[in-house]
C-alpha cells in the first residue's frame, strides 16, 4: 500500500508548502467499538486556510479535539507524530500543545457563565505577564476583534452579550495565547448569516495580521467556497479528497464531494430539483466493508466492496481516495 503521508503535502496545485506549521501523521481516534477518525494526515502552512468539510458524524470535530488534546473521556487517540512549527510534540491527552488554540461551535456555552469575559481572556495570556499588563492586553484584544468600548466589555458576562459577540470574545481568547495555528470548529454554524459573514471576515483579518494557519471545520460548502485555500473532504473518519478550493469546486473527483457540491442549494442558480446523495452517513458501528461510501455511490465498482481506497495524491488534480474518480 502506498504511503499516503507524503502525498498529503504538498498538494501539487496548492501554494508550495515549505515547512508546515502543523503536521500530523496517521491520526486515529477510537470511540467505543469503532474508529471515529481513521488514519488522518494533515499539514498546514503558515497563513493557510484549510477547510475540513463533511457531514455530521464524519469525525471532523474529534480531529480538532484530538489535536488539542481535549478529547472527551472514553475516546482514545493515537498518531504517528505531531509536528508544530517544526518541533515534534510528544503529545498526550489533557495537555494542549503550545501554539494551538481552538474556537468552538457554541461560543456562549464555551465561555464560563460566572466569570467576566475580560478575565477569561486575560487568563489565556502568557502566564508571566504582570496583572496590569494583562488587563491592558485583554482590552486590546477585545478591541482587535471589533467590539466597541473594550473597557466596559471587559467586565461583561457572557449572557450579557449576543452569540456573535461571544464568538468574537472566544476569538480574542484564542488569540491571547499567540497561536501559530487556529482550530475553528464550526464557529459560525450557530450564528445568523449576517453575523457569520462578519465572523468569517474577522477570522481572515486576524489570520492576516498574525500569520497563523487556520484549520476551519464546517459542513457548509458555501463557507468553504468563500474562505478556503485548500479543502479536505471527510467521510466516515477518513479524508476522501483533498484539493485547492478552486480545483475542488470546478472538478470534484470523489463521488461524495460531487454529491455534496450538487446538493448545496445555490442562490444564483436555482434548480427545479436539488441533487441529493441517497441514504445517509452510517453509524460508526455500521460502516460497510471496503469503501465506506460504496452503498451511497453511483460509480461503485465490484472492487469497492472488497478493499478500501487510500488517499492518492499522485494525480495532477489534488488527492482522492477512490477507485473510480471522475
Amino acid at each position: 500500500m502506498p504511503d499516503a503521508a507524503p502525498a498529503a503535502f504538498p498538494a501539487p496545485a496548492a501554494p508550495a508548502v515549505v515547512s508546515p506549521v502543523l503536521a500530523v501523521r496517521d491520526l486515529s481516534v477510537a470511540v467505543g467499538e469503532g474508529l471515529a477518525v481513521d488514519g488522518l494526515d494533515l499539514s498546514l502552512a503558515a497563513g493557510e486556510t484549510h477547510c475540513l468539510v463533511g457531514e455530521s458524524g464524519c469525525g471532523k470535530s474529534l480531529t480538532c479535539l484530538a489535536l488539542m488534546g481535549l478529547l472527551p473521556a472514553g475516546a482514545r487517540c493515537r498518531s504517528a507524530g505531531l509536528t508544530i512549527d517544526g518541533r515534534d510534540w510528544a503529545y498526550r491527552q489533557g495537555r494542549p500543545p503550545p501554539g494551538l488554540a481552538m474556537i468552538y461551535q457554541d461560543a456562549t456555552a464555551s465561555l464560563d457563565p460566572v466569570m467576566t469575559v475580560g478575565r477569561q481572556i486575560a487568563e489565556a495570556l502568557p502566564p508571566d505577564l504582570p496583572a496590569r499588563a494583562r488587563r491592558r492586553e485583554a482590552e486590546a484584544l477585545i478591541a482587535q476583534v471589533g467590539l466597541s468600548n473594550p473597557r466596559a466589555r471587559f467586565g461583561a458576562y457572557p449572557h450579557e452579550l449576543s452569540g456573535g459577540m461571544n464568538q468574537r470574545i472566544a476569538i480574542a481568547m484564542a488569540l491571547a495565547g499567540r497561536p501559530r495555528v487556529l482550530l475553528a470548529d464550526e464557529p459560525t454554524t450557530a450564528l445568523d448569516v449576517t453575523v457569520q459573514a462578519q465572523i468569517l471576515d474577522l477570522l481572515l483579518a486576524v489570520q492576516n495580521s498574525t500569520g497563523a494557519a487556520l484549520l476551519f471545520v464546517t459542513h457548509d460548502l458555501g463557507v468553504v467556497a468563500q474562505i478556503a485555500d485548500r479543502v479536505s473532504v471527510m467521510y466516515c473518519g477518513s479524508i476522501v479528497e483533498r484539493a485547492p478550493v478552486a480545483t475542488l469546486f470546478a472538478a470534484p473527483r470523489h463521488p461524495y464531494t460531487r454529491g455534496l457540491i450538487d446538493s448545496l442549494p445555490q442562490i444564483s442558480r436555482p434548480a427545479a430539483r436539488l441533487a441529493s446523495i441517497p441514504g445517509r452517513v452510517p453509524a460508526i458501528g455500521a460502516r460497510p466493508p471496503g469503501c465506506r461510501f460504496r452503498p451511497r455511490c453511483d460509480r461503485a465498482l465490484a472492487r469497492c466492496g472488497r478493499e478500501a481506497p487510500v488517499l492518492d495524491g499522485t494525480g495532477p488534480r489534488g488527492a482522492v481516495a477512490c477507485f473510480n474518480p471522475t
Partner: protein
Amino acid sequence: MLRFLLVRLLRALLTVLGCATLAFFVLRLSGDPLVALLPTDSPAELLERYRVLWGLDRPLPEQYLRYLLALARGDFGRSLVDGRDALGLVIERAGATLQLGGTVFALAILIGVPAGTVAALRRGRPSDYLTMSAAIFGYAMPNFFLGLLLILLFAMQLRLLPSSGYGTPAHLVMPAITLGTAVAAKLARFVRTSVLDVLGQPYVRTAHGKRLGSLAVIVRHVFPNAAIPVITFLGFELGLMIGGAVVTENVFGWPGIGQLLVVSVARRDLAVVQTVVMVIAVSVVSANLAVDLAYGWIDPRVRVAGGRHAG
C-alpha cells in the same frame, strides 16, 4: 432590587403566616389542652376558670385573631405548664441547638465538599467508589440508630465519652457525629453530582484549552459554577437537619429546642409547641431567603420570578 426584595420578603412572610395558621388550627382543633393538662378528676369549675383565663372559651376565629395579633406583638403566650414566657423558654434553649447545628454544618462542609470533589475528579476510580460507598452508608444510616451504636461503643464499652449531657467539647462529639454523618454524606453526594455536571460543560474544556493547570481550572471555573446548586442544596438541607436535630438532641439529652419540643409535646404545652414550630419555620424561611440573595451575588445570570421552583 427593591421590587425583587419586596416580592421575596412578602412571599416569606406569607409562608410564615401560613405556618402560624397551620400550627394554630392543627393544635387547637386536636382537643382540649386542659383535659390533658389538669388532673382528670379536676372539678368542672376549675376547668372553666382556666378556660376563661386562657381565652379558650371564645369562638375559634376570635382566638385565631387574638393569636395573630399577639404574634405580631412578639407575644408567643405563656407555657401552660409553668407559666413562663414561651419565647423566652425557646430562646434559652436556642444556644445549645445553634452550637450543635453550627458544628454539624461546619463539619459537613469540611468533609462533604472535599470528598465530593475528589470523587467527581477521580470518577470511576477506587477513591470514588470508596468515598461514595461511605457516603451511601452515612446517608442510609438512621441517626437515632447511629446514636445508640455510638453510645454503646464509646460510652458503655470504651467509656471514652459521656453518653449524654451538655457543656464540654466531649459532650459535643457524639451528637455532632450522629447528626453530621447524614448531612456530610448527602452533601458529598450532591457536590459530586454538581462537580461532574460542571466538568462536562463546554467552558471547562475551553479552560483546559487555555493550558491553565488542572488546579486553576478547578478553582477558577469548576468551583464557582458547582457552588450554585450546592448553596441551594444547603438551604434546603436546613429544614431536614432540624428534623434530625430533634432526634439527636433527644438521644443524647442535649438541652436544645428539639428536646424542648419533645418534652412540651409530651406535656401538651401548647404555647411552647407553637412557639417552637414558629421559630423553626422562621429560620427555614430566612435560610431560603438568604440562599435566594446569595444566588444573586454568586450567579450573574440569576433569574427572578420563582426561578427556583422551575426545577
